[in-house]
């Protein structure tokens, strides 16, 4: 079950710089930890986080095992036009989560 918390404003003035925060549930298993049986627990992380505004990429982050479990990202974007902010996380084990939030600019 995907579990995501997104904090983005619902409205903005044209040209306003808005903060977008996203938190997603994911173990971010580093691949360096031994389990209780002594064997290394295989790596399982989110590798890419991409944000788009009406389809155009506005932010991209490549994550490493050094990103904490349940990764949190906050970044800024200039509000240009009304539409949809898309957030996409992909990673190991075919992990893929996409979320959309609407924003009205005007």
């Amino acid at each position, binding site marked *: 079950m995907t579990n995501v*918390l997104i904090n983005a404003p619902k409205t903005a003035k044209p040209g306003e710089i808005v903060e977008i925060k996203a938190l*997603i*549930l994911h173990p971010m298993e580093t691949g360096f930890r031994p389990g209780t049986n002594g064997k290394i627990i295989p790596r399982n992380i989110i590798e890419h986080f991409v944000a788009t505004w009406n389809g155009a990429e506005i932010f991209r982050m490549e994550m490493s095992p050094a990103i904490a479990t349940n990764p949190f990202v906050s970044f800024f974007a200039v509000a240009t036009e009304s539409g949809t902010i898309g957030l996409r996380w992909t990673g190991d084990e075919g992990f893929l989560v996409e979320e959309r939030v609407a924003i009205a600019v005007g």
Partner: protein
Amino acid sequence: MKIAQVAFGLASVFAATFALAQGAADKRRSGYQDMGEALQKMQDDDTANPGMLFVQLGEQLWSKPAGAANKACADCHASGSMKSVAARYPAIPKDADKPIDLEGRINLCRTANQRAEPLAPESRELLSLAAYVAFQSRGQPIAPPPDPRLGPFREQGGEIYRRRQGQLNLSCAICHDDNAGKKLAGVTIPEAHPTGYPIYRLEWQALGSLKRRLRNCLVGIRAEAYAYDAPEYVALESI
């Protein structure tokens, strides 16, 4: 009755409003006050606090029908009806003679009313539901009902709290009463108030119950942790 918070955790419940709930004469200190500023900020922001992911999950589970009765929690408990419920626990349920904690109460509903299998202890589902229910009591002081039957259990809890245990021969009171505020291994010893549970603890990178934390403490003093369903945990929570 304790209102403050355990240190080094991100409490998704009973958050910063503790300060408002405390009266001027109450000298108890929340672990929140010993957290670094960056962590306090992380806890205070509901959209950045990882514990809230579990509250959200609990909210989803609340509406999911379960069991032979095919009922969801929401079918009997209207939204908003869980306010103050978590603050009343541990309490003795109807027709019982021993107190149970919030997770115990949720499982009681599952088996008796939903006719479903009880959720496994420390399972994500049980913790998320407990987090969701506890979230409805956010900011409120823990206040179990003035049930005289709770007396002996509270006494038992107090006795366990003051009892020396384990290879290190320490009691809870020695660190958390006598030495609270001082440092242990570079870390400030909290007063160990049981608020904010289920808590997102950075060490666990997940949500966990008070029982898990108490077992953590017992292992820390090199004592044998009681069995998971042992009454000692509820007794400790009651004091």
